[in-house]
């Protein structure tokens, strides 16, 4: 017993010492959609091999990821809610923001489409119709990028869905939200990447009922935490990663990423 205690104490000390002598590492606050798609597993080794910088990804919703940066708990953010990002930049918490890539959102619903959305062109009008019919709608409800987009659509048509009987805020990640929508025969807004990657695996009896509305464009951006706000952040390394992501090489890496089913999930569009 004494030996075990000694050993475990030694392990603890090593852990503490180890964290002090950390090499060149940065923490990137990002979102579940990027992490779960496998994008980071694909591109990070390429960047690490080239620069020796290890990128540690903490996946949260976009809102939480930006908050991590504001508090100085991350060195950079890789998220998808451009308005929130620009606001955080304007407030001085982030600098060096760039568009990196995009995909798009789609509205999915039960195969029999009870609110008759198929054939409509405007996502906002579609939501309005769902509200009028009182068809079930599942919302992420977690201040994520997807949730932000959804709320902006409700606002556009002047509907306040909160508290309505047909409106379910689940506070879960995208894939779980899709599954809940499936179980409840409800509509939901999802990103095409998650939808493509999971519809077969999760045996979702759902279809895309609306797509290709320009308003459903889903822009991903990167930005570094402002070193003037938080002195300890690894601004140089974070900037190096950002520059790589928007370089020809990084953009090609993003373009060549495919999920396990062979779908392209993200399209590079850095300027």
């Amino acid at each position, binding site marked *: 017993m004494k030996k075990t205690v000694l050993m475990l104490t030694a*392990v*603890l000390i090593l852990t*503490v010492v180890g964290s002090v002598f950390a090499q060149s590492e940065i*923490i990137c606050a990002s979102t579940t959609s990027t992490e779960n798609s496998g994008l980071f*597993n694909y591109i990070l080794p390429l960047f690490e091999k080239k620069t020796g910088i290890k990128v540690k990804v*903490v996946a949260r919703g976009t809102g939480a990821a930006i908050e991590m940066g504001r508090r*100085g*708990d991350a060195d950079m953010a890789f998220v998808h809610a451009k308005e929130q990002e620009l606001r955080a930049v304007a407030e001085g918490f982030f600098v060096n923001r760039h568009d990196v890539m995009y995909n798009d959102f789609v509205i999915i619903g039960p195969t029999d489409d009870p609110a008759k959305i198929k054939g409509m062109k405007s996502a906002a009008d579609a939501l309005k119709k769902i509200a009028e019919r009182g068809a079930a709608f599942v919302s992420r409800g977690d201040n994520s990028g997807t949730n932000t987009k959804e709320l902006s659509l409700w606002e556009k048509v002047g509907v306040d869905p909160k508290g309505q009987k047909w409106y379910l805020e689940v506070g879960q990640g995208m894939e779980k939200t899709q599954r809940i929508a499936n179980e409840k025969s409800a509509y939901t807004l999802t990103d095409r990447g998650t939808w493509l990657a999971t519809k077969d695996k999760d045996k979702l009896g759902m279809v895309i009922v609306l797509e290709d509305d320009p308003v459903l464009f889903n822009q991903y951006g990167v930005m570094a935490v402002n070193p003037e706000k938080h002195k300890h952040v690894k601004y140089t390394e974070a900037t190096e990663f950002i520059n790589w992501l928007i370089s020809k090489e990084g953009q090609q890496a993003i373009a060549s990423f495919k999920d396990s089913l062979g779908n392209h999930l993200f399209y590079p569009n850095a300027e």
Partner: protein
Amino acid sequence: MSSLLEAFGKAFSLMLHLNAELLAIIVLSVKVSGTALVIATLLGLPLSAYFGFKKFPVKGLMISLLNTFMGLPPVVVGLFVYLLLSRSGPLGFMALLYTPTAMIVAQSILAFPIVTSLSHSAIISVDPLIKQASLTLGATPFQTSVTILREARYGIMSAIIAAFGRVMAEVGAILIVGGNIAGFTRVMTTTIALETDKGNFELALALGIILLGISLLINLALHVVQKRGLVGVRS
């Protein structure tokens, strides 16, 4: 049903072909929870003995508080430690957030009340005659305390095992303070949560089965230690 069977099959094949990544996750789980348990025990056991042997005002209140903290939701502990260790928090300068150390801190807080409270119960249930006999036979108060602790050791061991079960199974706190960073702070439970999120139910369940298996091994080992202690006393 088929996915349950599949999970067992997968768990079995995972254990047979243990890859380096999974092994690292398992090792980190045991390391974090084990270290937290040692810290909680080193702090909790003396405190429980103090509570058991000494009389002082507000003792009842403190024990009730400890009992309440046994039911602390891990997420709350995680949030508390997060705010403490965040760069914008009081201990931010230590740069401990999103490290295994932060996870150890959170789990120590979770394990501490369990070790302390249950050990205290074990100590006060020791037959008072033993204390009297020990004192009558001329033992010093310290020697008497050691005797009582020896008598209570099975209860104390149960307390430690209960605390181990709690931290090994816990996901809420370490997810918040560890960040579930691949290859760095990802442990069994956070991997299970992640794989469930990703819809890899069979893999998640398989990992759960492995986690249970590890807990079983550790409990068996502790049981052996207990048994040996018993033989030692009788001979």
